[in-house]
């Protein structure tokens, strides 16, 4: 089943000259970097194999980073490297060499939260330094301090409203970046050590065990215990409806969380916010039909319940979940990534989920509307007809106009 009828609006080319915020997407791997950039991200953030906060992510080797930089720069996109752990002394000893290496490769900036890291980066390179949200920069005075310490951009705490972010930008003269979409820490970022003390995993060096997502038993005033309470589990952030405020306050960069998510997520979320930013930039409004379309797509991406976080007022009542699971609803299934295009002959697809002849699938072009298709023919990697595409295989599907290497194929699955 397709997400929506394959008609309605078409996107206007992004040739607007007016100011726009940077769409900054997560890139947990080289594949995800290419997908995010291809689908419209102005910039991506990623980690090397050390100093980031996602130890379980694939993270980039030197060669992957070099390739990712070339890919992004050729398409006008920037690449920021996260160094946002809070390193112990033994960790930081290896940092100078890494900083010199990424500076030589030509990364566009680093994201750091620890003043030791910031000090090393400014001593060993001339890389722009973006203060990570982990540093919980929440007010103008804090912004002024970080500016004096060499920071060039403030990735503000998720507790800061868009209006406050604009105020901080004006007061400091620094670029400001705000999260617009994705999962949220319950604590002031960088101020949670539950994993450290209970699981022996340092959350501020990449080992967060997501203890805030666990269920807990709480005791009420009578000492009566109530189980299955997700009192620390935050709803997810979705700020697409508030894009006009980001424009009004000239927030330099809108950030999407999710380096651990799939290529499908990296691509679709980049595309949605690309379209929304370009549309608002041109029309100075977000037409209702398009908003509905984007909402539907965002609803089909894996998420917990959405909220607007603290973007307009402090997140509080109603900002936590009353259950632990992702929303029970239809969702996009990631069928595969186009790896090779034989013009007018076939597309070679690396299969991520099973699909069959007769299934309705969607081809998602880098720009423009998804194309709904019924699978009429399916061939294995060497061209023999098959009826089912299996995971960890390559299949050939008939050529689709507009398909390029890296294009995504999905379908909507009803739960």
């Amino acid at each position, binding site marked *: 089943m397709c997400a929506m009828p394959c008609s309605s609006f078409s996107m206007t080319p992004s040739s607007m000259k007016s100011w726009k915020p940077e769409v900054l997407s997560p890139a947990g791997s080289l594949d995800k970097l290419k997908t995010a950039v291809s689908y419209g991200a102005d910039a991506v953030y990623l980690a090397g194999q050390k100093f980031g906060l996602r130890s379980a992510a694939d993270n980039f080797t030197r060669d992957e980073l070099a390739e990712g930089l070339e890919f992004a720069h050729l398409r006008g996109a920037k690449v920021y490297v996260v160094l946002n752990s809070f390193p112990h002394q033994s960790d930081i000893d290896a940092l100078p060499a890494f900083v010199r290496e990424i500076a030589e490769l030509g990364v566009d900036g680093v994201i750091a939260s620890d003043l030791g890291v910031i000090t090393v980066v400014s001593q060993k390179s001339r890389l722009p330094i973006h203060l990570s949200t982990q540093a919980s920069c929440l*007010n*103008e005075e804090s912004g002024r301090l970080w500016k004096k310490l060499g920071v060039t951009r403030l990735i503000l705490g998720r507790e800061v409203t868009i209006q406050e972010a604009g105020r901080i930008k004006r007061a400091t003269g620094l670029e400001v970046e705000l999260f617009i979409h994705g999962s949220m820490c319950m*604590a002031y970022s960088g101020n*949670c050590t539950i994993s450290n*003390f209970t699981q*022996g995993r340092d959350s501020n060096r990449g*080992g967060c065990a997501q203890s805030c997502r666990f269920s807990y038993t709480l005791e009420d005033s*009578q000492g009566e215990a109530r189980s299955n309470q997700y009192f620390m589990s935050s709803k997810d952030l979705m700020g697409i409806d508030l894009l006009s405020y980001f424009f009004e306050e000239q927030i330099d960069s809108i950030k999407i969380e999710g380096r651990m998510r799939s290529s499908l997520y990296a691509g679709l979320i980049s595309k949605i916010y690309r379209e929304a930013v370009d549309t608002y930039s041109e029309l100075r409004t977000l037409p209702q039909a398009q908003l509905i379309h984007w909402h539907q797509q965002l609803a089909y991406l894996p998420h917990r319940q959405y909220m607007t976080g603290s973007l307009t007022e402090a997140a*509080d009542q109603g900002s*936590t979940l009353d259950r632990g699971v992702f929303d029970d609803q239809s969702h996009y299934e990631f069928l595969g990534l186009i790896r090779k295009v034989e013009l007018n002959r076939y597309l070679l697809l690396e299969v991520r989920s099973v699909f069959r002849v007769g299934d309705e699938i969607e081809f998602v072009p880098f720009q423009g509307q998804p194309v709904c298709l019924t699978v009429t023919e399916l061939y294995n990697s060497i061209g023999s007809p098959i009826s089912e595409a299996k995971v960890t295989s390559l299949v050939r599907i008939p050529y689709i106009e507009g398909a390029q290497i890296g294009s995504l194929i999905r379908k909507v699955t009803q739960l």
Partner: protein
Amino acid sequence: MKLVAYARNSQELNVLKNAGAAEVLLCHSQLSRLGKLSTSELNALTSEARKLDLRPILEWDILMTHEGFTRALETLQEISWDSLCAVRVQDPGAYEWILENRKEMPIQLVLETGNRNLEGIRRWCEYGKGRVERVVLSIELPESRISQIISSLFVPVEILGLGPILLLYTPRHLLSNQSNHFEWMVKKDERAQHLIQTVASSEQTLHSGFRVIENQHGTLLFHAKDYCLLDQVRELREMNLDAFRVDYRLEESSEGLSQLNEVLLHPEQSNARQVIEAHPRKVTRCFFKANATDVLFKKLKNTEIQRQDSGFIGDVVEISRGQYTIIHVLSQKLSLKVGQALKFITPGGQIVQYQVEHLTDLDQRPVQEIGAGDFGMIHYVKHATPGSSVYQNLE
């Protein structure tokens, strides 16, 4: 080594004085995470502390957005600054504000969150241009590191010696959010604007007894055990620790303080164990002897298949048992060639060696070489699986 502790009222000031404390931390309801004092109470206690020859220190440790900062500044205008000996801050904005607006006031800088390396800690101190009279370090630092920092730093150091371990601090009111399900005991007294307390136990781990406190600043989650270094006092003195902080703010009474003086002054003669056993809850010294909170990271992903640059060619994307193996060439530097010696590393870590004798493209046309981004087909490689990494075998 100074004993530093909090006082909530005159009685506690006297307990502190008798316990031999050097200074007292005073917590205003609008400025401190666990603060309950009104401005008049704080000003009165500041004066009393002075009379008792205790150094009164204002704790301003909340984190603040613009709105919170504005409220804090209103409160600060009513504080008797002349009687205070120092201000303790954690939010960098508060640090900046004191540096710019109270130019004579010494600063105690709380670096308990993060700040585990000397480069950063030193720079925080230098930024204060001589105004930082003490830094408060994280209890995640092990003994050896604290000792190195103390010997390398020009600013005296304090750590928590006995008290609750803060695990999470959020501005959200997490217990009020649950009010549909619970009749919470909202403690109202003259000092607290808003206070809800409960105990949480994880249903997915063995950890229980987390103390949860919601107040006007949000919600704080504490470890079931308290941090305690009473049995390490001699070591702390030897490393020249400047201040040993004791925090009884979550207890009904701070009478335990009176017994600490002897432990701090004469650790070799006193019986710290007796004091620890009398403490209202179990204690831990967590990472004081060693912090190994990064050793489990290796288990978070399969390091066997973590890509290495050296010799990397690509990944196996498909295998047809007994027939063929398809490799996606990903390297920009190395291609897949006839005659090449390959090493496959499977997702399970098994190493399979193979010599390429026959290579075709996906249309099964024989080729000598397959380059970046393309797919090459070789004979079936026994034991290799999809997801295996393919390297040039240089051995």
